[in-house]
């Protein structure tokens, strides 16, 4: 038990400090004596909304997260269905599919930064297909660059969750449907998909939380301060603290980001079974 208490003390205490700092007028001048920084109540929240790019950043984070999450669904499910039936080399294939997920975010970011650089290989390949682009890491296309890279890194999660959902379908049900003469699409639509709902929606939920909280990927891809089209909330919060040294406003932004994820998080907590005796 002391472990659990320790965890809570060590995490709940900083949370309290975060809340408190968000009410202070804290910058690099008042930082040394931060406890004595002037208390300004909700002032930071008001200036975060009015004077900073907060709302824009929330919009970028959420829209990117939603687009990525929706696109991971068909890809992840298709991958799981394609590797469910046994064939030679399936084990190896499954490992390969998980590679983007196992690669650390900074590696994924670096890989794609090299690929998407101006005049780089992506521009070249697309150009030879008749699609002429030049800037991926800056300007309006950068939003889609972020979405593509996030998608590349996060579909294996949905794939993994779908696979685990597929294991729970009893072969007997499948056989019965096949004997009844149902075609593959009908079987998928009415027999397989209903069974996958739980596992897949859990995967999507985690994926969404992940991409909204993601800092490393946009940071490595675009650098700081980031281009306006990809100014996501975590990066903005970081820049506000450690580049502009407006700690109070940054803390207020961090609190905003908690509110932002609170809704999907609540669903997530309800979806996971907490108690003993069931498979989690």
């Amino acid at each position, binding site marked *: 038990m002391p472990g659990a208490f320790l965890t809570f003390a060590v995490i709940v205490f900083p949370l309290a400090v975060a809340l408190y700092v968000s009410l202070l007028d804290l910058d690099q001048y008042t930082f040394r004596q931060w406890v004595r920084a002037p208390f300004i109540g909700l002032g930071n929240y008001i200036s975060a909304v009015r004077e900073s790019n907060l709302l824009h950043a929330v919009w970028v984070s959420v829209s990117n997260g939603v687009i990525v999450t929706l696109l991971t669904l068909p890809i992840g499910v298709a991958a799981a269905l394609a590797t469910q039936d046994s064939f030679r080399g399936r084990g190896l294939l499954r490992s390969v599919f998980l590679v983007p997920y196992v690669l650390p975010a900074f590696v994924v970011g670096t890989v794609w930064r*090299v690929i998407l650089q101006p005049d780089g290989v992506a521009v070249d390949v697309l150009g030879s297909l008749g699609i002429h682009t030049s800037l991926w890491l800056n300007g309006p296309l950068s939003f889609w660059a972020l979405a593509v890279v996030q998608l590349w890194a996060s579909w294996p999660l949905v794939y993994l969750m779908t696979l685990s959902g597929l294991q729970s379908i009893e072969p007997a049900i499948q056989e019965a449907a096949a004997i009844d003469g149902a075609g593959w699409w009908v079987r998928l639509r009415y027999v397989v998909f209903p069974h996958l709902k739980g596992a897949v929606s859990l995967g999507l939920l985690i994926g969404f939380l992940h991409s909204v*909280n993601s800092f490393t990927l946009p940071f490595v891809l675009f650098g700081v301060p980031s281009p306006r089209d990809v100014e996501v909330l975590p990066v903005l919060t970081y820049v506000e603290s450690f580049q502009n040294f407006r700690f109070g406003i940054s803390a207020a932004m961090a609190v905003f980001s908690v509110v932002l994820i609170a809704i999907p998080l609540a669903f997530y907590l309800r979806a996971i079974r907490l108690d003993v005796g069931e498979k989690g």
Partner: protein
Amino acid sequence: MRRHEQLLPRPLRIVTIAILLAVVLLPLSYILFASANSDLAVAEGAYLPVTVDFTAYRKIWSTVELGTSLVNSIVVAGIVAVASCLVAIGSAYVLVRHTFRGRLTVLRGLLALQSIPGTLLLLPVFVIFASTASALGVQVIGTRWSLVITYLTFTLPFSTWVLVTYLRGLPRELDEAARIEGAGPLQVLLRVYVPLAKPVYIAYGLVSVSYHWNNFLWPLIVTNSVEARPLTVGLQVFSSTDQGIDWSVICAATLMTSAPLLAAFLLFQRQFVQSFVRAGIR
């Protein structure tokens, strides 16, 4: 499985697999080629190397100080993995086998804490560390210890949850049998559960190492020297130097840093996947 029970018709399956393989492998193969290519050719967007040249793999050890960062990463990840496992198994045991008020809240809290945005804890922990420097005279920021302490706190909820999901699958009778033999609660934990949880340790070690390999924001802020820097930041600092970008070296270093993780993943793939799926999270 008999043929008519397959989920997807054969042609569709083959097409799906081919497309996905290309999506995964093309970017990675490109980095492999680029690491052996000349910087100019990479900058111009050549896919295949013009001249094959592996000097980049020698350069990463001298120009990037990859060795120091690698050692830092391994030391930090190792300490954190062992320490948090020790603490976590104790808490997990209590959470699974004892009923007390607020137990569900604790479990829920464990889960919720994983999704807390890193940016929320960043500032307060930084403030607290800065205060220990001025109040107690202990300089934490800038050392490897700052990483160990914070990772320990950040990974504890996850490690506890992983062990909770594992321990709850073990039969309760084990406990009772040991009790009848006259073992106290602590002995039950040490003699029964600690050995039984062995399969989790490998998975857990992997998860913890991959967490470390993934963490970037925090070391970026608290380590400011080559001596304390882990791999993640070391590579980033190198690739943003102004002295003309050395693409082949970046690619070589990227591959070298992910190699240990990929090797571990391929070796222990089953444990890795199981623990992810069982815990339902990452």
